[in-house]
């Protein structure tokens, strides 16, 4: 697979019109296996702004109008300890917990939004390679954790 030379090319990503922000190669998250149900979409950009904290927007690089609202699980549940399969840890090149960014997908349903705790997205902070993992202890977590229980100070 050809490896793009870093910093040689900037790609412009469309946000809400008319903003256009340059996306540097070092900001692109690669998911070699995609997300479940979106296996063909392998490149994402993670966007966020202070007024939307703790939520972030995982935007498809090549389809900027589409993406997922994601959230760090620490904002949602205090003791979320998904047991990531060793194969995934190896594939992502994660040596210790500090290497990992963990994000969970939010399903926006008005006042009844939920967070999927069964399928965390684990990203290697240094390589920005990620994967939607199914924890070994997946049975301990709900698929649709109500977001109204968010312990955030808005």
């Amino acid at each position: 697979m050809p490896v793009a030379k870093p910093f040689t090319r900037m790609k412009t990503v469309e946000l809400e019109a008319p903003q256009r922000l340059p996306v540097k190669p070092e900001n692109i998250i690669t998911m070699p296996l995609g997300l479940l149900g979106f296996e063909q979409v392998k490149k994402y950009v993670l966007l966020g702004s202070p007024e939307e904290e703790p939520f972030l927007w995982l935007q498809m690089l090549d389809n900027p109008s589409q993406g997922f609202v994601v959230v760090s699980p620490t904002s949602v549940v205090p003791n979320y300890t998904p047991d990531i399969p060793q194969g995934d840890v190896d594939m992502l090149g994660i040596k210790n917990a500090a290497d990992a960014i963990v994000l969970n997908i939010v399903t926006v349903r008005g006042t009844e939004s939920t967070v999927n705790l069964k399928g965390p997205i684990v990203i290697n902070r240094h390589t920005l390679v990620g994967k939607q993992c199914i924890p070994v202890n997946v049975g301990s977590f709900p698929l649709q954790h109500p977001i109204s229980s968010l312990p955030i100070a808005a």
Partner: protein
Amino acid sequence: MLVLSRKVNENIIIDGRIVVKVVRTEGNFVKLGIEAPADVPVHRQEVYDEIQRNNQAALTSGRPAAARSVAGPAHPPAGTAAAAPIIPSASSPSAPIPPAVPIVPAVPTVPVAPAAPTTRTVPIAQTKTPGGSA
């Protein structure tokens, strides 16, 4: 698809390291014991299916309205109308987050799976008569 007939307490060995045992049958159910190294994920198909469906339901068009509708100032009590979408001001553009900036304040622990093999018992619905599918 390879289709094998097994009696209760008989095993299938996959790749020399994964043992699937028929523990018992109950009407429409077959109870399987699976012994596999910790680095081999074993899940019911339904787990993949439900995460996939949930992902599809979570796909969102347009970031600002979506993110603000959950990040908004209040989660209105049930029965009241949701807050109107906020028109983003040009002065607060969102920027790609450089990886160097820690965007996850506290990283949840990612425990490494134990090396010891584990035995899991997974009841699954009985498949069709052997030889019935390709």
